[in-house]
């Protein structure tokens, strides 16, 4: 058992983008991802999650800093303007 410092990228975005974003993430080299359903509010207004496609998703990706930077750059240029999107990173100790 040995901890390893890695980057955790959390992406909050629209459920309608799920397949698209997962495609981008895997194409950019992620080893995995985790998704939970969410709802919320931001600059694009209330996303109440009343039905699946009208809600948000919360995607987490654990990877190296480089991968996360690539994903952030790609999503930023392609989806930021037109879709609800918030991304943040932090350092975590992966235990394995």
């Amino acid at each position, binding site marked *: 058992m040995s901890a390893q410092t890695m980057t955790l990228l959390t992406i909050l975005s629209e459920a309608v983008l799920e397949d698209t974003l997962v495609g981008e993430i895997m194409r950019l080299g992620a080893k995995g991802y985790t998704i939970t359903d969410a709802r919320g509010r931001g600059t694009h207004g209330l996303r109440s999650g009343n039905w699946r496609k009208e809600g948000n998703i919360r995607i987490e990706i654990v990877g190296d800093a480089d991968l996360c930077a690539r994903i952030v750059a790609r999503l930023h240029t392609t989806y930021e303007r*037109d879709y609800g999107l918030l991304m943040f990173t932090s350092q975590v100790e992966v235990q394995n």
Partner: protein
Amino acid sequence: MTFEPVVLFFLLGAAAGLLRSDLKIPGSIYDALSIFLLLAIGLKGGVKLAEHPLNEMLASGAAIVFAGALIPLLAFPALRYLGRLSRPDSASIAAHYGSVSVVTFSVGVTFLGQKLETFEGYMIVFLVLLEMPALMLGVLLARHGQGEVRWGKLLHEVFFGKSIFLLAGGLLIGYIAGSEGIKPLDKLFFDLFKGVLALFLLEMGLVAASRIADLRAYGAFLVGFAIIMPLISGVLGVVLGWLLGLSVGGTLLLATLYASASYIAAPAAMRIAVPEANPALSIGSALGITFPFNIFIGIPVYYWMARFIHTSGV
């Protein structure tokens, strides 16, 4: 003007929303109700198609689809130049009004049932056929001169999006199985149809109430549009139905199709194909204004017009 009790559930939902009740229909139940309605409508249409000669439909079909394409072409300049909305917003809203609402159509069918009017069963096919040209026109209008269109994504979203897929799949199964084959499924899909529609309207009321606030921000123009546009499209439907020799019931349903605005299939497709458009505008007007307008006022009015033109028509 007599009431269909089912629309009272819309009022109940809207009241719950406006009065801030904690009533909430879980998202997965909403999804299940809509899967049910789409399949049920499709099956019903397929069974009716199997009973009647298809060529009867082909004759009028082209005319109905062609005239239906006028609706977004009419709506776009009104939104863009009268309403001074941005190009993507105008195009997206136009696509919503060119599309159709399955629930509004269902209320129309229920209304006819109460009036004991029959209708041409193949009308259900136009739930599928009217969607595509409207969405494609919306994208063309939005993109006019500006960069590439992701047709592949859009066409996939249209054809394989849940709504069209289930409607078309239901049609096909109903057509193959026929009235006899489908009988064991009647107890679920036909007998419960109206009750499920009531629950769906309850949810629609809840959502519409939450959308009203969005709309307030965009002022009177959009509210006016959301009432006048269905009336214009409805008249178009009434006249065309009469010209094509449809029954009074079929004429009402054509008017209802034209007058209704999509708030499930179109939003999903437009979000992908014209992401710059603000979805609050199109869903707000389609669901918050046009939908209740149609189920409470529009359908009785189109019915009255359909009867008028059929009895006193030249």
